[in-house]
């Protein structure tokens, strides 16, 4: 497989556009699919809509493309309301999840289609088709039919077909979901490079947090037709606003309970009966959940309290050797905690049944409201 040519100059000379979604709601009968969504995507930004299937992210994308009509709210590009424009009037390029290449046209004809619809002169069309195919490294296969291409090649053609029209906004609907794991890593890097070079405002829909985190400038996490949180991937990862976001972006330990005063010592007592001791002299957050990431905690022998750490006693119930780390499941009362311990050659693993103390630096413990 050829890689995308990164030496070409950017083909898109148009100024990047800003997309604004304001108070958009959409329901199919009783079922509310989008619930008062507002979102601003900055010019030239690579933006991800991230969420589980059925969260409304694809519907939101289709709404921007004009394939779904909002019941209320508006969508605008650079301040121009496009809510009532037909799909073919929008200049919003979309790459479909199944690529939607027309099987009765060859690669070049597929890519030329949008340009022909814009009544562009023939020589110009030929040049731009070439440029677009060059950009995705597919110029050698212009005469092939889609059925003669591999999945990855089809995806490149679909991308070329969309960027050939130099859209104001580029929409990518789960672009990597039909590729195998190895190709996925390669293509997502290429997508990022291409987007940077074209300076194209891009929205990607995905259910894969790794995909969103690796290539996008900002991410909107969605669930049940609502945007839960918007931000830079690393920020949201560290500072999730609620348990859903915390869980969706990676493994998370979330304990439900309340703060109690146990003889001068502050303790977070979970519903399962575990007791998380909080060191004195530091401010704590408020909320009925406590959250920390598995790799932020460490395991010590029972009774050894580390200064500045919250700690909780438990026994090792299960362990998984992952290579670069070991994931221990620690049973603490009715709760099970996941703790990742880095593994270095020569380390010995802790035994099942061993009593341990889980220690978490207090600055890595966050209070959430469920």
């Amino acid at each position: 497989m050829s890689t995308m040519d990164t030496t070409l100059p950017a083909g898109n000379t148009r100024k990047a556009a800003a997309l604004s979604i304001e108070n958009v709601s959409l329901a199919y009968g009783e079922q509310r699919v989008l619930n008062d969504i507002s979102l601003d995507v900055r010019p030239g930004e690579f933006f991800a809509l991230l969420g589980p299937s059925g969260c409304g992210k694809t519907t939101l994308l289709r709404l921007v493309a004009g394939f779904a009509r909002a019941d209320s709210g508006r969508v605008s590009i650079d301040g121009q309301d496009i809510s009532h424009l037909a799909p073919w009037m929008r200049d919003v390029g979309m790459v479909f999840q199944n690529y939607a290449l027309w099987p009765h046209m060859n690669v070049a004809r597929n890519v030329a289609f949008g340009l022909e619809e814009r009544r562009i002169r023939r020589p110009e069309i030929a040049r731009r088709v070439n440029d677009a195919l060059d950009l995705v490294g597919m110029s050698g296969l212009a005469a092939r039919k889609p059925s003669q291409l591999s999945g990855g090649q089809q995806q490149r053609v679909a991308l070329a077909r969309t960027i050939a029209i130099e859209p104001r906004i580029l929409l990518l609907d789960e672009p990597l979901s039909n590729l195998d794991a190895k190709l996925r890593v390669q293509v997502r890097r290429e997508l990022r490079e291409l987007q940077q070079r074209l300076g194209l405002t891009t929205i990607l829909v995905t259910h894969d947090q790794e995909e969103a985190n690796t290539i996008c400038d900002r991410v909107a996490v969605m669930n049940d037709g609502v945007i839960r949180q918007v931000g830079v991937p690393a920020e949201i990862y560290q500072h999730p606003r609620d348990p859903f976001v915390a869980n969706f972006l990676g493994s998370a330990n979330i304990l439900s309970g309340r703060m109690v005063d146990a003889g001068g010592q502050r303790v977070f007592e979970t519903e399962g009966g575990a007791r998380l001791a909080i060191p004195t002299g530091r401010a704590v957050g408020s909320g009925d959940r406590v959250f920390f990431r598995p790799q932020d905690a460490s395991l010590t022998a029972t009774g050894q309290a580390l200064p500045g750490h919250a700690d909780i006693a438990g026994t090792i119930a299960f362990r998984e050797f992952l290579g670069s780390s070991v994931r221990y499941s620690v049973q603490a009362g009715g709760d099970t905690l996941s703790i990742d311990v880095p593994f270095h050659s020569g380390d010995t693993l802790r035994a099942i049944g061993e009593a341990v103390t889980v220690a978490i630096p207090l600055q890595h413990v966050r209070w959430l409201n469920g």
Partner: protein
Amino acid sequence: MTHLLRARPAEVAVALAILLFLGLFLVWPVATVIWVAFTEKGTGAFTLVNFADFARTDLFVRSFWNSIYVSAMAVVVASAFAIPLAYLTSRYTFAGSPVIQVLGFLPLIMPPFVGAVALQLLFGRNGSLNLLLDDWLGFKIPFMEGLNGVVFVQAIHYFPFILINLSAALANIDRSMEEAAQNLGSSGFRLFRRIVFPLAMPGYIAGASLVFVKVFDDLATPLLLNVKDMLAPQAYLRVTSIGIADPMGYVISVVLIVTSVAAMWLSSLATRGADYATVQRGGGGLAKRSLTRTESVIAYGVVALILLLVLAPHIGLLLLSFATVWSFSPLPDAFTTAHYARVLGESSLYIKNTLIYASLAGLIDVMVGTAIAWLVLRTKLIGRTALDWIASAALAIPGVVLGIGYLRAYYGIELWGGRPAATLWVVIVLALAIRRLPYALRASHAALQQVSISLEEAAENLGANRRRTLRRIVVPLMTGGLAAGFVTSFATAAVELSATLMLVQSNADAPLAYGLYVFMQSPAGRGAGAALGVIAVVIVAATTILSQILVERDRRLKAGRS
């Protein structure tokens, strides 16, 4: 691994039995026809003189072009019915869609030659419509004159083939195909012309070529409309009036075969590389719009008009079956049930024969079809695809040709008492079975394909041997599909006439379609013929509905399972 590749005796035995069956009842008769066409009468030497005679005879050349004209025009007229209906159902949310579904099925339950008589009474020169037109407006429309009459009848009868294929093709178009075009700036008629139409083209061509071939091969409709200068009627008339030794009937047969094959070959050429289903994953059809008020009026108007046309043969037939006298008047003079009494009494033999013949033919088809499908899909036997190919080749053999082939091949073989083998009623059953085999084969193939091989392997893994796996897993899972295949074979065999017309030797052996044809020949027999026709329609309709129910139930069962 090697012992798996080696053929087992059972496989070889089944394959040989099928080969013998196809060889005796398909290959040999057809080969005989071709052989006679290319040899000199008497000496058996190779010659092209017969074909030169064909080309020199004005009647035959005219018949050939007439057949081409009628078939092509039938495709055009049938398309005019089918395309608007298919577009309407796939593009719009249209309350009349169920009506269109019925439209696509009503004509097929009545043999076209039966409809021809009814249409003659309604649309003929002195039919109801023209009598009324003449009374009120002082002119007549020649719907049923000469070749155009055949075109009219055939188009009404066969347009569902285009409707069904085109609708299926439209329904298979992935919605994203259309959306991608819109996203890139295309809309309206340009979008239809550039994306929707090309993607639906393979389906349309499949339907259109089927209509062409069916019309080209049809024998009974032109004969009943008294159109004799077409190819299939000429072949029949040559053999029945001049005798089975006359070579011209065979030459015409070869021309019929070649034209059928050419039409199918052209259609497959036109759709080659257009197996779009593999590229389109989603399906789901086009996005549907609701009709505006004006569009609704037009849509319902079109549907009502076509519905009326499609129902016309049925209404005409029903009226005729209860009519005392119906001639030179818009409606019959008086009504009677005497025709039914007559048909159910003295002529009930026809009905009994039909039920026996069609059941046996259907049974043979399902058994042979399943055996071939099994060999093709589940064994590595060398030459298994050849069996599939031979059985499917029956599609290209017109009924009249098969009939002539049977007569020629089996007339010389004498059984007890010097009776020629060709006169046995079993021969009719075999001809019907061969004619319907390609359809039953496809049904069996599809039914077996649905049984994933892993389901069988799971059974074997849990300790069931091959025979028990077949009985407990494969057969139960195939039953729905096979039953539907049987019923389809039965229903179409029950009203098949073109091969039967050649092979019926005595009235006692005649099936319903033959009886119908005989009755319809004379004005006096028309009432009884119509009554027999109504009974045929009821039988076919009932079995078709039954097959729909079986297919639907099977589909639900499978859906529930996965």
